[in-house]
């Protein structure tokens, strides 16, 4: 490393920490302060560390709403991801492997899913008609519908790198179409499946807008909605609000620590091919 690189590096590190780490330090410090100290909005250390007190206060707030929210968010995330991963892989597989005059149309539908903002009120109307409004399974299906395009595109480009000879060898070996997919192709999709699962679970877990529209009501609260609900309730107790932010940030943080590489790979896919 040249001297210049070390010097610029140090400057960049100082600026980087200042710009990108201090907001998180602010969240962390405010979360363990007393309400009075927190209202000063400073970065000074708390005179008394109240981690446990604030933690319990947030957990107990509104009759353990946060725990229910964690449960709901987990159910939605896990449910949607399991449906998404396998079925998006199946779609990506068929449209990659089967050239047809429909491909342009199918591709346009997929891009539409990436681009078009969902029409919320008609969706609510439809969910009501189907008795899915305000239900967790309805929310799961919504997340599948909204996350499908992105997942299919990831699977499709990965499957393009798997030689077709493998499918044909399996067909010669007597595999039925579903056996070709589940016994030969699916096991080879592990790396991209991990990526899809990570990226989509962060997206779904962090989703605020869709639960806000499609999942109103106290019993259906999700983690992101607790923030919204507590924002008004805790307006004089900044410490508790920030403790809540801290708790909501933990699951993505854990994911990030363990799977940084795969998440980055999934989110930056497309940079190369455009």
């Amino acid at each position: 490393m040249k001297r210049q690189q070390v010097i610029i590096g140090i400057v960049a590190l100082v600026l980087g920490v200042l710009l990108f780490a201090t907001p998180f330090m602010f969240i962390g410090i405010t979360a363990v302060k007393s309400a009075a100290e927190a209202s000063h909005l400073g970065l000074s250390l708390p005179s008394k560390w109240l981690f446990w007190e604030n933690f319990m206060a947030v957990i107990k707030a509104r009759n353990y709403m946060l725990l229910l929210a964690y449960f709901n968010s987990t159910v939605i995330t896990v449910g949607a991801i399991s449906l998404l991963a396998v079925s998006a892989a199946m779609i990506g597989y068929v449209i990659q492997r089967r050239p047809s005059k429909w491909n342009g149309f199918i591709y346009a539908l997929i891009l539409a899913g990436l681009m078009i903002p969902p029409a919320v009120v008609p969706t609510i109307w439809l969910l009501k008609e189907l008795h899915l409004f305000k239900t967790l399974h309805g929310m799961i299906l919504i997340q599948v519908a909204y996350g499908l395009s992105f997942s299919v595109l990831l699977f499709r480009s990965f499957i393009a790198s798997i030689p077709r000879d493998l499918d044909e060898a399996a067909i010669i070996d007597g595999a039925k179409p579903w056996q070709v997919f589940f016994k030969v192709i699916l096991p080879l999709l592990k790396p991209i499946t991990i990526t899809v699962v990570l990226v989509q679970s962060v997206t779904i877990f962090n989703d605020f807008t869709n639960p806000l529209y499609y999942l109103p009501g106290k019993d259906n609260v999700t983690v992101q909605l607790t923030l919204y609900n507590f924002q008004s309730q805790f307006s004089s107790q900044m410490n508790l609000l920030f403790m809540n932010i801290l708790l909501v940030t933990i699951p993505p943080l854990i994911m990030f620590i363990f799977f940084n590489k795969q998440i980055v790979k999934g989110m930056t896919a497309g940079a190369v091919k455009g």
Partner: protein
Amino acid sequence: MKSSRSYPYWFILPSGLIYLVLFLVPTVTAFWFSLTQWDLFETRFIGLENYSQFFQEPFLITGAVNTVVFGAVTSIAKSILGLLLAVLLTSGLLGQSFLRTLIFFPVLVSTVGIGIAFTEIMHPARGMINVGLSYLGIHGPAWLIDPHLALFSVALVDVWKGVGLATLIYIAGLATISSDYYEAARIDGATKLQMFFRITVPLVRPATVTVVTLSLISGLRSFDLIWAMTKGGPGFSSDVLASVIYKQYQAGFYGLSTAGNIILFVLVALIVVPLTYWFNRREVDL
């Protein structure tokens, strides 16, 4: 080809059906509902009245203008900053992988959480930013309180949160540029600045397309950050179409809300589709 037998279309069915029912059907029926007065149970056809109302209410027009401004500002800022950061963070600096991690992390954090935290950080008197600026002798602006500034303050936070993703996309793009080009340019006597504008910028184009398209789409549709920080205020100064849609929905104006949805849809299509087309055509010329 026997692909009809080997790759059956029923593979598309399970989630294709979900997609059809929960995404495509509402999108298509929205066009009809936007022409009605609607309470979810009964519809009354009123033609283009929702649209004319939309374009007569000044605050609704503000929403549409703000949407474009927000999308443009954030995507331009993200692509320029992202490229510069990517070049910086691939130059072999001390601690560059730590820095990459640091600026990417906000991408994964709850937008609402970030929004709430920055509302306090941007507090005009006690917020960290203005306190920091006062040490430098600068009197900081009223960020979210100032109606002329509120939208841009939210955009700033959006850039802060999203620039890490743009940077990583650019880093992936830079990795595909062969070092041969830079060596050839050095032999031709190019300066670092010339190399950046004549080699890096044109060759990193696919990444630029991705960054601009992605951030434009998400910027135009942006809702949660704005809602967490300003709720469209002060007044209607930071309202965007997505927040207008929500407000009209809350107020029970379902037809009007849906018209807003269609306008947002048309706006996204009018901006993104020609842009992608233009991007792709330029690519053929290369």
